[in-house]
């Protein structure tokens, strides 16, 4: 049986991992569209790293407090708490600093990334227990996805996708023309908070399932590719999500077929797609 045939078989051993990967590929770009439109792509690097630091911090706290509960559910819950907590604190602090506007946004995001990357390593180094499990979670070992974690992921990311579609007109207006939104009586701060909540949840679950690298890759690269191919908002989001899901499937196939690490393969496929689309666009612009 070919690798593709095996992957499409209902008895495929890594079926949950494949579905989890496609789910992340589908939903992360829907959130990532707003990273691109609001020109906060670097936040897409810093937040997954911050989320990973949160996972490491949660495990370190457990070790230091001497509370060693075992079992997949307990560890996943701990990771969720740490990941969400750090992502939200980071978002709140960055949003508050943005209002004060003392430094440039790039500087703040750069400092956040440096802090998060250093903190992740230090928290791992300081944790005397469970380093192996935590390393899996930090790397986002998607291959270890189980039926339970897939159901949780599908529920959470499904809710995020539904919210993004249902609240599309509010989120778009506040992102495109904040002053117009305020004149029309919209509570721009509230809608920013809703968007940040959806971003935080997506990143946290993305990082726990697939790791910071893949989460960042899916947040940013498919929307950038879709931006080159579309001229409507609706098709922009739909194409970004479709590209993300297709990238996840092709990346999984290549990683399985060629025995490559899944995360970097996914990101590589996404970037090759971006380069091909950008090249074709440049070629068309030159010939027309």
């Amino acid at each position, binding site marked *: 049986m070919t690798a593709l045939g095996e992957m499409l078989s209902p008895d495929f051993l890594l079926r949950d991992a494949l579905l989890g990967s496609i789910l992340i590929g589908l939903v992360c770009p829907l959130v990532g569209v707003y990273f691109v439109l609001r020109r906060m792509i670097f936040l897409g690097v810093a937040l997954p790293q911050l989320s990973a630091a949160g996972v490491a911090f949660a495990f370190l706290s457990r070790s230091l407090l001497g509370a060693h509960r075992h079992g997949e559910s307990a560890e996943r819950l701990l990771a969720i708490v740490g990941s969400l907590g750090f992502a939200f604190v980071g978002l709140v602090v960055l949003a508050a600093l943005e209002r004060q506007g003392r430094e440039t946004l790039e500087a703040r995001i750069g400092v956040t990334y440096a802090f998060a990357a250093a903190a992740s390593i230090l928290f791992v180094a300081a944790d005397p227990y469970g380093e192996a499990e935590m390393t899996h979670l930090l790397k986002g070992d998607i291959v270890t996805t189980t039926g339970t974690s897939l159901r949780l992921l599908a529920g959470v990311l499904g809710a995020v996708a539904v919210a993004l579609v249902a609240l599309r*007109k509010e989120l778009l*207006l506040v992102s495109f023309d904040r*002053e117009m939104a305020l*004149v029309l*009586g919209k509570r721009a701060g509230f809608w920013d908070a809703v968007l940040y909540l959806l971003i935080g949840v997506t990143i946290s679950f993305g990082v726990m399932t697939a790791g910071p690298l893949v989460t960042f890759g899916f947040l940013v690269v498919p929307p950038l590719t879709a931006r080159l191919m579309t001229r409507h908002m609706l098709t922009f989001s739909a194409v970004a999500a479709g590209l993300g899901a297709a990238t996840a499937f092709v990346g999984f196939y290549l990683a399985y077929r060629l025995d490559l690490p899944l995360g970097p393969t996914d990101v590589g496929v996404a970037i090759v797609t971006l380069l091909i689309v950008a090249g074709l666009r440049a070629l068309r612009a030159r010939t027309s």
Partner: protein
Amino acid sequence: MTTASLHLSGVSLGYAGRTVLRDVSFVIERGEFVALIGPNGAGKTTLFRGMLGLISPFGGRIDYGFDRRASPPGYVPQKESLDPIFPLTAYEVVLMAAAARVPPLWPVGRRRRGLAAECLAAVGLAQSAEQPFWALSGGQKQRVLIARALAVEPEILLLDEPTAGVDLGAEAAIVDVIARLNRERELTVVLVSHHLRLVRQLVRSVIRVADGSATKGSSDDLLSAQRIAETFGAAADGGS
């Protein structure tokens, strides 16, 4: 029943505790066409933002002669203030404002979609509805933004330098649209402009912003050569 569209009484405006304009009082009547003029840095934008409700007055009152929730002001920003990264057609830009009147989670119905198309037609751009917004000329973009402002079904239209950076033909088209909306729909119009020639052609009332305050008067008075020289300094020739 009052005929005032906008009433400012003893208003002070500014930013971060710094007062830019003090004790501003005037009334803009319904259906009036008013220009806001003044030198750079005098506080035109501050007053404009205060009238839109984007900044709260430090003191005094701003009263609207209409229900702001039912009929919010039609705001037309400068086209440069919007980011070209958004993939939007002209119709989508207008629809965004029409859709803003629909409560969250409710779909945008046929009436709102029809309204967006009507507003585009009202500014003479029905044929450009499916064009990418950013591919339009400067004058067309500005007319799309006027259509967007109309899509909220406003009682008052506030425009920030609508003819800035467009050629003479586009300027004429924009001015024609604004004047027609004021005349035919009896929309109250407040226009920020540096183009005194244009202001002279269009309006009978002027709000002059200078010396930390704002006063309203007739265009004949506030646009006289002497008053222009007082407002803009000796360099102004009154015809730019």
